[in-house]
């Protein structure tokens, strides 16, 4: 007798559990869908401001940046993604000073650990929110961050 109860018990319990599952999915069938319609929503799409897309070097209106070519970021980088090319120039008052020639950044080998931005004493580099970084050629991932003809900003600014 017990066995028989068990047989039908399992049968009906099982069927009701299946019913609960069917009810759940049917409810979802009519709820609003969650798919993001990218790229149609490109204009409304807002990345979080702390999102790390790619390393950039902000320039102000006079085409000036804050990089003093100290190379701390280059040393901090675990992957060697940063190469700071600098030259020694003599300033007007006769002192020798390092000046940034080219700030090369390899997006392809960057692992977004933020050690470079943490190391930078002048906040010259920061991560942008850009995320559409796909290119057809790997060499295009090596970017020069300082604008052509840019120079380091004077202390005051």
């Amino acid at each position: 007798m017990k066995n028989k109860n068990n047989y039908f018990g399992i049968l009906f319990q099982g069927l009701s559990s299946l019913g609960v599952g069917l009810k759940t999915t049917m409810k979802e069938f009519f709820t609003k869908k969650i798919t993001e319609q990218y790229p149609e929503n490109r204009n409304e799409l807002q990345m979080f401001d702390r999102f790390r897309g790619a390393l950039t070097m902000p320039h102000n209106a006079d085409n000036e940046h804050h990089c003093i070519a100290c190379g701390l970021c280059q040393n901090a980088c675990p992957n060697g993604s940063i190469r700071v090319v600098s030259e020694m120039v003599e300033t007007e008052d006769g002192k020798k000073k390092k000046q940034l020639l080219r700030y090369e950044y390899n997006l392809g080998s960057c692992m977004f650990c933020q050690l470079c931005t943490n190391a930078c004493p002048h906040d010259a580099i920061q991560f942008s929110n850009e995320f559409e970084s796909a290119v057809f050629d790997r060499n295009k991932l090596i970017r020069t961050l300082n604008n052509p003809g840019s120079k380091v900003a004077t202390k005051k600014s």
Partner: protein
Amino acid sequence: MFDFSIVTNWIHQWLLSLMPQGWAIFTECVAVGIGIILLYALLAIILIYMERKVCAAFQCRLGPNRVGPWGCIQVICDVLKMLTKEIFTPKGVDKKLYNLAPYMILLASFLTFACLPISKGLEVLDFNVGVFFLLAASSIGVVGILLAGWSSNNKFSIIGAMRSGAQIISYELSAGMAILTMVVLSGTMQISEIVGMQTNGWLIFTGHIPAFVAFIIYLIAGNAECNRGPFDLPEAESELTAGYHTEYSGMGFGFFYLAEYLNLFIVAAIAATVFLGGWMPLHIPGLDGFNTIMDYIPGFIWYFGKAFFVVFLLMWMRWSFPRLRIDQILSLEWKYLVPISMINLLVMALVVTFGWHF
């Protein structure tokens, strides 16, 4: 209700006026064959699209929506992609069987497909043991699956094929028994007559409780027969990658895919024919106005409407449940479905004998 036999007879007469009888029948056979293939392909496209949209809706997604408006030509693009793929033969396969297997499966599903009464007068194969033929033809498919698994020279494939063999052969029993229950009720095996029986009430209503039980059993067994979730363990992706069709590429795989979806439709269409009145419109006794309005809707719309309703039920089941294990599949069949359908058959026999049905 419009009788399509008028059209077919007219075509037949017209052909006879042009050529001798032998040629006329041959031409008709070719035309019907082409018609079936076209309908088959069209249905497959609709079904695959429907599956993707329905499953997306269950899963809080939108489904395909990139190619064409609402993604409606997605499936056609997929077919084109599949056609451009290289057809390769893996090392060590039994070439003859390997190439034969997809056609065996297609053959089975074509034969079954031809039995479906789409509208009044639109039955391709209709004879006095129609139901019997239908069940026999549908079971050829398992041979194709076994051949595919065996000939592929792949351990995953053979496990998938063996699972499938065990499963389909078992579930054929309860599917057959469920249909047999309805044959008892209708008293005929000819499909057109079964449909004809249902002018004044579908069998699921006239047969009430035993018919309803048979309907549920048929849905479960039918789902299992076309290897669809929760019975999709012959091709259980997370266990056997793709099961018996792992080693097929291009259209070889395409045929399996096609047959799988068409089998889904066939199962649904048989359910619609046997339980839900085929192309018969919904008649409620006593409401003559309503019945006349229903009569204006053509039979094939009724038929496809019902079939797709059952397809939706099967999809709903598929996308709600986790997969069973092989021993559970067998114990579900042999410990639950078979005894219940046997008792159900007995109950139906009593109902018919004592005239307890409507």
